[in-house]
């Protein structure tokens, strides 16, 4: 049995509620033989954010073989990001691992799965670190993570994964969409009003600039003309322009000073790249 082919497009929304709905809809389309909801354990204050994340760990994650998932947290305290295990990495769920003799147990009253698996194996196509399974070098076991936010007074234990068929524009920052990328096409669902742009200047730009080519993008609904033109009149725009002018002046001064001191930025950059290339070896030795 080969898994049904997954669509490699992502839908971006402005808020989490429709994104969750789309994720569940696409998961249902997968016709997975079993879907297991794994609920995180939260201590302390109730989270207030719209996505209910605590320490970058979602409240619940739906697991199903073949489902597209996104890492919500850098792994290995950031030391594995150079291997491609960074917040936002996209992969396909392969298996859920339990200790021998253990397995998912359900609460009799609610039927809700309690307890955690030991790890979840995810195929991250861009993973370049040591292979856990030499037959599948991009398969990575992702363990349950724990974190506590002292400032907000709450902590959470859970899987750092979320379904990756849809997300919000804020979370898509840094994502590139195009041929040969983990996600090849973008479906954009923007509100037909100026409200979101008013409270989040640059949202439209972030959403549109994810694609490498215009043909990689489709809009689900029409965007109000007022919204596009509102960007020009946003109250923060003059401040942004002033800041950009300040940075341009600083940059010109920095480059001029560097030229005076014979500082070669290209050499510094080369040195940095060499350091980055050596870094995986240093991390592996850790």
């Amino acid at each position, binding site marked *: 049995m*080969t*898994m049904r082919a997954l669509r490699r497009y992502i839908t971006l929304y402005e808020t989490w509620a429709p994104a969750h709905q789309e994720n569940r809809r696409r998961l249902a389309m997968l016709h997975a*033989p079993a879907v297991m909801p794994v609920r995180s354990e939260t201590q302390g204050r109730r989270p207030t954010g719209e996505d209910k994340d605590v320490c970058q760990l979602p409240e619940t994650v739906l697991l199903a073989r073949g489902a597209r998932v996104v890492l919500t947290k850098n792994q290995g305290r950031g030391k594995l990001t150079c291997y491609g295990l960074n917040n936002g990495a996209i992969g396909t769920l392969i298996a859920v691992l339990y200790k021998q003799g253990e397995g998912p147990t359900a609460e009799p009253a609610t039927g809700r799965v309690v307890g955690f698996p030991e790890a979840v194996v995810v195929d991250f196509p861009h993973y370049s670190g*040591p292979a856990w399974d030499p037959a599948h070098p991009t398969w990575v*076991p992702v363990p349950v993570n724990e974190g506590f936010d002292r400032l907000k007074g709450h902590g959470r234990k859970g899987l750092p994964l979320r379904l990756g068929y849809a997300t919000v524009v804020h979370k898509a920052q840094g994502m590139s969409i195009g041929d040969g990328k983990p996600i090849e096409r973008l479906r954009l669902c923007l509100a037909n009003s100026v409200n979101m742009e008013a409270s989040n200047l640059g949202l439209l730009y972030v959403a549109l*600039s994810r694609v490498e080519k215009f043909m990689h993008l489709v809009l689900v609904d029409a965007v109000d003309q007022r919204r*596009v033109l509102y960007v020009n009149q946003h109250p923060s725009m003059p401040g942004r322009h002033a800041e950009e002018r300040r940075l341009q002046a600083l940059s010109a001064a920095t480059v001029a000073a560097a030229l005076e001191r014979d500082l070669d930025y290209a050499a510094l950059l080369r040195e940095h790249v060499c350091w980055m290339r050596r870094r995986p070896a240093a991390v592996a030795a850790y």
Partner: protein
Amino acid sequence: MYATGFNVYRSFNDCVLLDETMRQGREEAELLSQLLRIRTGHATQGDWQQLLGRLESRQTEGFMREFYSRSNRAVCLDRARATRARPCPCIVYAHMDMVYLLAPTPLYMDMVYLLAPTPL
């Protein structure tokens, strides 16, 4: 905290602006200039019109079929093959901060593999 962070940011005097967009290639000059106008607050009615041209309802049936049928890299999760593919004896690999795992042994449920306790 926000004010402290902002003050630290403002205290930097060495600054180099990176002004080349790497995501959109040079062949996408039109998209690049449109994005720049939207970013800098100089969007035009033409930009809006062009954006509307990307509406799902305005695309051809063939384009949309192609759009939605970009298939994922084939992931074969055949139960028999998954078991066969496992090397024996099992490979133990420890990721930092990750539990020690053995390659899966028999399938426990349809989607759940067993994990043997590993003396390391």
